[in-house]
C-alpha cells in the first residue's frame, strides 16, 4: 500500500465521511492541509472572516442538515477563536468536527510561535478531543472523531494536528467499522421501561408531553406527533425543541419556561404526568425547582443518562434514542386497543382547562401608535414567509420574540443558541444553513447588539453569493439585559445603552449588499417584502420600541407560575 501524508488523509477521510463543505480560515500551522484540500478540489471550502464565524457556520450547517459540520483553523489564535463556537455546539449537542493546526510535535510545550494547548482548553467543551502525535493513528482518529460527533448524544470533537504530522507519511487504511470498548451509548430503550411508561400514560388524567432538542436530533418529530395525536396529549416545547411538533397544532402549548406561554407553564404546574422527550430540565424551564410540577409523575426519555435525574426526580427513566422509544410507545398504545377517539374524549376536561388558560393570557403585546413593535415584525415575517423559512436568531429579546411569535411547524427550521446563549451566533449559523440549503429562504433575526459580534461575515456571505436575509430589531439597547435592569435593578441601565450604532443600511451597502429600514409601523410590511424579495444578501432594519419587554417572564429563581404578564 502506498503511503500518503497526513494532510492527504484528512482530505480522504472527509470524502469518506461525506463532507462536501468545510468552513475555515488558514494560517501557518494548517497551510499544508489547505494545500491538500485545494489540490484535491472536490471539497468546497468557505473562507470566513473570523474563526468564530467558521465554527458557528459549521454548527448552523449541522443543525439545518443533520450532518456533521466541519471547520478548520490554524494553531494559537485561530484555534482559540473557535472556542466560543465549540462551546456553543457542545451545550446544544451539535455534531461537529473541528480541525486545528498545531506547532510541530518537537516544539510542543516550548511556548513556540502560535502554540496553545487547544486540547487542554477545549477538554471541558468538547465531547472528546485528540492531539495526533503519530501519523499512523490519524486514520483511526479521523474515523473516531466523526463517529463520536454524530453518535449517542452528539457533540463537537476536536482534532489537533501538528504540522509535522500533516506531512509525515503512512499507509491510509480507513477503518470501515468502529468499535470503542469504552464508548457504547445505549440506543435501544428497555422494553420493561416502555411498559411501565405506558401504565403511567394510561392512568394519567392531565398529561403533558415536554419535548426538547433531542427530538430534533433524533429526527423523531413524526413519531412524537403520532404519539401526541393518538393519545391526544398537549405538547409543550423547549426553545431547542421548537419545530419538533407543529406549533400550529391545536395540541401545541408553545414554548414553556422563563419566556414560555402562560398556558404551557400552567399546564406544567398542574399536570399529573410529564412525558419528557429529549429535554434536559434546564433551569430556564423549571424555574424554582422545589415548585416545579408538584403533582407530576415523570417519564424521561433521553439518550444520555446524565440528563436523567440530574435536576428532577424521575419515575420512569428510559435511556435510549427517543425515536425508537417513541415508536415503541406508539406500538404499546396501539396494542392496548383503545382508538384515538376514546383517548380524546378522556382528555376533554383537561383540554377545557388548557383552552381556558390559552384564552385568559394568550401571547400578546400592546400596540402603540407610531412605534414599531418587534412582535409585529416577527408576526409579519411569519406571514410573509408562510412559516417556511429557516430562521436563525441572535441572543436576547430578538431570540425570545422569535420563539414566541414565529410558529415553527418543521424541525430544523429554528437554529438558535440555547444552552450557551451566544450573541453573534445567528448570522454565521445562517451562512452555514444557506450553504446546506442554497434554495431555501434563510433569515437571521438579530438584535442591534448581537449582529455586531460577527458582522464581518457579511463579506463571507457576499463572496459566496448567499441570499441570507438579516432582520435587525434595533432598540439601541442590549435589550434583554436592559429588561432585567428595568425590572430588578431599579432601571439603572448600566452599560446597556448604545449611543452609537452603525447605519445598518449603509453598512449593508458597504459590503455590496442591500439595506432597508423601517421606522414606522406602516413601513414594516413594505420593508420586509422588499428585503425578502431581494436576490442577494439583505439587511432589514426596524427601529423598534426601545423599551419593549419580553413577556410572559418568570423572574430567575421564581416558580414558573409566578409569571410577569404583558
Amino acid at each position, binding site marked *: 500500500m502506498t503511503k500518503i501524508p497526513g494532510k492527504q488523509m484528512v482530505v480522504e477521510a472527509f470524502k469518506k465521511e461525506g463532507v462536501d463543505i468545510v468552513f475555515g480560515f488558514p494560517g501557518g500551522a494548517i497551510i499544508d492541509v489547505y494545500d491538500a484540500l485545494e489540490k484535491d478540489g472536490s471539497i468546497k471550502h468557505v473562507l470566513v472572516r473570523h474563526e468564530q464565524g467558521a465554527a458557528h457556520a459549521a454548527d448552523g450547517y449541522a443543525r439545518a442538515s443533520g450532518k456533521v459540520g466541519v471547520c478548520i483553523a490554524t494553531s494559537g489564535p485561530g484555534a482559540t477563536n473557535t472556542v466560543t463556537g465549540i462551546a456553543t455546539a457542545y451545550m446544544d449537542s451539535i455534531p461537529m468536527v473541528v480541525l486545528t493546526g498545531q506547532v510541530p510535535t518537537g516544539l510542543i510545550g516550548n511556548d513556540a510561535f502560535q502554540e496553545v494547548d487547544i486540547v487542554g482548553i477545549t*477538554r*471541558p467543551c468538547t465531547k472528546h478531543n485528540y492531539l495526533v502525535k503519530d501519523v499512523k493513528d490519524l486514520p483511526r482518529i479521523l474515523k473516531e472523531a466523526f463517529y463520536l460527533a454524530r453518535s449517542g448524544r452528539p457533540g463537537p470533537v476536536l482534532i489537533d494536528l501538528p504540522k509535522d504530522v500533516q506531512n509525515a507519511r503512512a499507509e491510509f487504511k480507513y477503518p470501515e467499522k468502529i468499535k470503542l470498548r*469504552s464508548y457504547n451509548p445505549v440506543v435501544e430503550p428497555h422494553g420493561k421501561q416502555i411498559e411501565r411508561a405506558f401504565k403511567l400514560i394510561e392512568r394519567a388524567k392531565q398529561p403533558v408531553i415536554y419535548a426538547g432538542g433531542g427530538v430534533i436530533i433524533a429526527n423523531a418529530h413524526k413519531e412524537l406527533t403520532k404519539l401526541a395525536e393518538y393519545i391526544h396529549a398537549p405538547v409543550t416545547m423547549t426553545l431547542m425543541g421548537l419545530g419538533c411538533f407543529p406549533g400550529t397544532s391545536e395540541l401545541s402549548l408553545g414554548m414553556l419556561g422563563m419566556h414560555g406561554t402562560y398556558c404551557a407553564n400552567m399546564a406544567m404546574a398542574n399536570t399529573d404526568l410529564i412525558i419528557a422527550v429529549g429535554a434536559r430540565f434546564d433551569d430556564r424551564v423549571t424555574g424554582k425547582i422545589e415548585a416545579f410540577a408538584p403533582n407530576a409523575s415523570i417519564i424521561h426519555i433521553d439518550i*444520555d*443518562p446524565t440528563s436523567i435525574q440530574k435536576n428532577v426526580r424521575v419515575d420512569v427513566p428510559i435511556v435510549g434514542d427517543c425515536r425508537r422509544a417513541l415508536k415503541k410507545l406508539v406500538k404499546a398504545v396501539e396494542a392496548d386497543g383503545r382508538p384515538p377517539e376514546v383517548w380524546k374524549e378522556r382528555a376533554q376536561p383537561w383540554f377545557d382547562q388548557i383552552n381556558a388558560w390559552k384564552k385568559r393570557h394568550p401571547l400578546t403585546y400592546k400596540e402603540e401608535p407610531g412605534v414599531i413593535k418587534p412582535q409585529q415584525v416577527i408576526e409579519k415575517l411569519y406571514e410573509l414567509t408562510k412559516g417556511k423559512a429557516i430562521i436563525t436568531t441572535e441572543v436576547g429579546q430578538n431570540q425570545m420574540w422569535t420563539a414566541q411569535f414565529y410558529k415553527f411547524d418543521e424541525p430544523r427550521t429554528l437554529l438558535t443558541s440555547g444552552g450557551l446563549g451566544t450573541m453573534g451566533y445567528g448570522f454565521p449559523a445562517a451562512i452555514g444553513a444557506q450553504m446546506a440549503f442554497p434554495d431555501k429562504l434563510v433569515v437571521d433575526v438579530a438584535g442591534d447588539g448581537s449582529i455586531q459580534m460577527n458582522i464581518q461575515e457579511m463579506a463571507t456571505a457576499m463572496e459566496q453569493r448567499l441570499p441570507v436575509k438579516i432582520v435587525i430589531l434595533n432598540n439601541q439597547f442590549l435589550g434583554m439585559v436592559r429588561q432585567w435592569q428595568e425590572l430588578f435593578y431599579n432601571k439603572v441601565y448600566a452599560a446597556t445603552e448604545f449611543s452609537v450604532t452603525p447605519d445598518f443600511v449603509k453598512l449593508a451597502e458597504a459590503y455590496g449588499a442591500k439595506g432597508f429600514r423601517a421606522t414606522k409601523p406602516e413601513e414594516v410590511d413594505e420593508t420586509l417584502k422588499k428585503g425578502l424579495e431581494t436576490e442577494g444578501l439583505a439587511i432589514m432594519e426596524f427601529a423598534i420600541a426601545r423599551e419593549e419587554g419580553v413577556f410572559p417572564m418568570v423572574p430567575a429563581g421564581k416558580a414558573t407560575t409566578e409569571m410577569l404578564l404583558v
Partner: protein
Amino acid sequence: MKHTLSVLVENEPGALSRITGLFSGRGFNIESLCVAPTLDKTMSHLTLVTNGDEAIIEQIIKQLNRLVDVYKVVDVSEGEFVEREMALIKVRAEDETRAEVLRMCDIFRCKVVDVSPKTYTIEVTGPESKLRAVTELLNPLGIKEITRTGTIAIQREKKTI
C-alpha cells in the same frame, strides 16, 4: 457520605485530566485519587474517594461513564470491600522518645523503614482509620513529615470490576 469508586480507564494521554477536570468543573469533591497500571497495559485503574449525597454520587458515576475514555465505574463502597492506604511518616526520635516510637510501631504493626540519629521513618498500611489513629498518637512526639498514597480498594470475594 463517603464513597470509594473504582474506575477503569483507557491508558490514553489526557484521560486523567479529563477525570480531574470533570470533578473540578462540576464542583464534585475528590478526597483522594490513586492511579496505577493494570495487568492489561492499555488500561489504568483508578481509585477515587469522593463524598456527596445519593443524587450527587449518581451524577458522578454517570458523568464518569460519559467520558469516552472511561471503560467502567464501580462504587465499591456499595458492597463489601477492602480498602488500604499507606503512609510514610518521619517522626522525631531522640533519646527520650526513641523507645516510645518503636513501642507504638509494634502495637500498630508498622515498619521502620529508615533510621537516622534523630528520626525514624515509619511505614503504616491499613484503612484510613488506622492511619488516622497512628498519626494522632505520633503527633505529640513530633511528626516532621508525612506522605500518603491515597486509598486503594477492591471488592471482596468473587466480584471483579
